[in-house]
Structures are given as C-alpha cells and as structure tokens.
C-alpha cells in the first residue's frame, strides 16, 4: 500500500455484494441458468393455461350436465367450484399470468440491462452536456515521465488500484505543469510471451470548467455529463488513441481500470466496438448503471464506498448482474479524507483481496491472468483537448 494511503485509510470492510456468480463458477453457465429459469417460468405459465382447458371441459361434461335435474343444488355447487379453479382471482388463469413477469425480469437481469430508472437522469445529463457544445477532438501524446510502478507487474487488486492512484496523482501533485489527462497503458508479458494490457484511467481533474469556457483539460465536467448521457467523449477517443500508440493488438486481453469518470469511461468503452478485446473492467467510485448493455463475455467488478455519492450519479445504484459484481465497502473513516478519494478504494481493494466471500473471490480471481505477469512495461500518455 502506498505511504499516502496507509496514512489516511487503514482498513475497509465489505458491507454488501451484488451480482456475480455467487461462487466464482463459470459465468457463462450461470447466465444460462437464469435464462433457463426464465424459460421454466414461461413453461409453467403455459402449463397452467393448458389446465384451464381441462377445467372448462369438466364443467361442460355431458355426463355431469345430465345429473343437474337429479340434484340441482349439489350440481350448481360443483359447477361453481370447477369454474373457480379456472377463472377468478385464485384460478389457474390468474396464477399463470403471474409467472410471465418473473420470466421477463430474469431475462432482463441476465442481459445485464435495466433501463427504467436511469432514463430521466440520462436525458438531464444530455441536456447539460449540450450546453458545452460539440466535442472538439483530442491530441494524445506519449509522456516521457514515468510513474513509480509502471514497469512492475501488479500482483493483486491492491497493486492495481494503487497504481491507478499513482497515475491519478500526476494531475494533482508535484511540480507544475501537472499532467492533467494522463493515463497509463501497461503491457504485461506472461509465460510463453502472452501479452495482456491494463489501462489505468483516472477521474475528473478539472471540476471548474463551465459551459462556454472549455479548455485543453479533457477530464472535465462536460465529459461526466456525456458519460451519464451515454454519449461518446473526447476522453474515450483519446484513450483508444493511446492504446493504439502503445501497440495494443486486437485479440490481446485488456483490463480497463478507472476511478470516477475513468470508471465510467472504462465501462462505456468496454460496451462499444472499439477493435480492442476488453475482457474485464474494474471501476472504483464510478456509476456504471448508465451503460445500457454490455457484451455478454465482459466482466465488471465495481467497488463503491458506502459514503461516496458519486456511484449513484446514474440515478440508481448498479444492482449487479451475472456479468457484474458490485462490492460496497465501508472504510469507517469520516472527515479524514474525501469519501470519493482513491485512498479509500485502495483500502477497499485490500478488503477484496482478503475476502472469503465466494462472489468476491470469484470476481477477483477472474483478474488473475492480469496479475503476477513476468514483466510489465508502462506507456504514459497525456490526452488534451484540441
């Protein structure tokens, strides 16, 4: 853990886990389980509906009708009782109708798509973003400076989030001019020369730019609004340009790691056809529910600090889905540092690394191909708006 984080936040605990496989099993099989249960719900509804036909035929049975004159009172009672099994609030038809919505909800969950609550927020964000005017494009240039651990392969989730914090600090600390818009593309080489990449995406570093006063700093409030609205961003274009310049090839697995705006950008890019093979995303302190749909094979691990309101900016929390595990942490620290600060999430990552929760272990375990590589080479880029 970095000295800075150690000083400010010592521990975090996991308070909730949403989504995921519940045991780190094969996620694809788990998706099929949900779709399979949805199909069983539909089949149940069909079966119950078919049985209403049996009830109807009993009520109209000629042998039964022939006895009406012999015992009219009991005939009437039996006919009404048979009719009640078919229609009415407790009958088969009503029961059949209740299974369809469950099937629909399960299909929606299994598709990782829940549209309703975020729609209003997205419209409002789009309106806000339009006040800034159209995007103007970016320049993405390699930076000769290095951050401490760019060439050190991360061993666990803490190392990954700590390195994200190191890149983030380039825009916040040190001599002027600071490296606003800096990202790191880390190329890992494993056994047999297999290459993977981790792209580190810090969050907003310009909180003050107002509509009509846009400057070169690409990670401004305009980009936050565009991301919530589901629109493409200059930051995203710059990230893809950096990946191309760093030599990331199609088919080589990519892990996008982002904090705040960087996490939103990571989730957005992973859902688009970029030409890169993004297999995993880790977001910390970032809303992700605004991303309407994701590739089925993509896995997202989101860490939200219980006291951090930013992950709720999409209008609702991400409830988790088979392809996304959301872990809520509590650092137990108040008033020491900002709840949104990356140091909180370094402590949170430590809690995830140590967790015995099967869902958490499964989500962190999925990242193991990116951890413990034989070598690492970092390529730092600065993305500026033209």
């Amino acid at each position: 853990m970095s000295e800075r984080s150690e000083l400010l936040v010592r521990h975090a605990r996991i308070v909730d886990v949403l989504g995921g496989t519940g045991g780190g099993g094969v996620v694809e099989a788990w998706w099929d389980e949900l779709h399979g249960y949805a199909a069983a719900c539909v089949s149940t509804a069909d079966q119950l509906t078919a049985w209403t036909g049996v009830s109807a035929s009993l009520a109209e049975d000629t042998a039964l009708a022939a006895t009406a004159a012999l015992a009219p009172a009991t005939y009437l009672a039996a006919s009404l009782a048979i009719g009640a099994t078919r229609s009415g609030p407790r009958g088969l038809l009503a029961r059949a109708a209740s299974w369809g919505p469950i099937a629909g909800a399960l299909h929606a969950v299994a598709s990782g798509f829940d549209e309703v609550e975020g729609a209003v927020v997205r419209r409002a964000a789009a309106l806000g973003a339009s006040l800034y005017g159209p995007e103007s494009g970016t320049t993405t240039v390699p930076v000769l400076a290095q951050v401490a651990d760019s060439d050190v392969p991360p061993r666990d989730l803490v190392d990954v989030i700590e390195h994200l914090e190191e890149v983030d600090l380039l825009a916040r600390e040190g001599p002027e001019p600071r490296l606003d818009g800096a990202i790191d593309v880390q190329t890992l080489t494993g056994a047999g020369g297999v290459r993977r990449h981790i792209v580190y995406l810090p969050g907003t570093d310009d909180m003050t730019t107002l509509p009509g006063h846009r400057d070169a700093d690409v990670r401004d409030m305009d980009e936050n609004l565009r991301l919530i609205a589901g629109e493409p961003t200059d930051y995203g274009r710059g990230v893809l340009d950096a990946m191309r310049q760093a030599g990331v090839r199609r088919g080589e697995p990519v892990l996008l790691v982002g904090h705040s705006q960087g996490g939103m950008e990571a989730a957005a890019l992973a859902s688009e056809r970029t030409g890169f093979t993004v297999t995993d995303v880790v977001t910390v302190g970032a809303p992700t529910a605004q991303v309407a749909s994701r590739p089925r094979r993509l896995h997202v691990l989101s860490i939200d600090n219980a006291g951090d309101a930013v992950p709720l900016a999409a209008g609702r929390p991400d409830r988790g889905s088979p392809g996304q595990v959301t872990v809520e942490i509590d650092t137990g620290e108040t008033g020491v540092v900002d709840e949104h600060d990356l140091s909180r999430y370094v402590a949170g990552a430590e809690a995830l690394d140590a967790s015995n929760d099967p869902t958490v272990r499964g989500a962190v375990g999925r990242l193991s191909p990116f951890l413990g590589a034989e070598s690492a080479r970092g390529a730092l880029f600065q993305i500026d708006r033209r």
Partner: protein
Amino acid sequence: METAIRALARTMRDRADAVRVVADRMVGHAEQLRWRGAAADACRARVRECALDLRDTATLHDDAAAALDRHARAVEAALEAALVEGRR
C-alpha cells in the same frame, strides 16, 4: 352416472397434486440458482409468493373434487329414491 362424476373428482384431485408439484419444483429450482444479491433475494421471494398462490389454487381443485363427490352422493341418493318410488 355417479361413477362418471367420481372419475371427474379424481381428475380434479390429480390436477391439485400436479399443481403442487409445479409449485414445489419452481421454488426448488429458484433456490438452486447461483444468483446472489438483493435482486436475487427479491426474485426468490416473488417465486415463493407465486408458489403459495399455486398451492391455494390446488386447494380450489380439492374443493371442486369434494363438491363433485358430494354431487355424486346426491345423485346416487336421488336415483335410489327414484328406484324405491318406482317399486311402489
């Protein structure tokens, strides 16, 4: 005639059993899913509610079967009464 009515009653009882089997199967299937979290808990709770409703509908089928049995007895009694009357 009353035999045919009792056969209808058996059909209703068999249907009641079948409805209960469906309810049990859907709850068991939901419990076996590896899905976890608040949404999963809410879904399983809804499935249990629907299964309870199904068991209630199964009870309606039992009630219908009992009504058919009562009707069969009433028809039987009416036929015997008619037979006695005919012998007089």
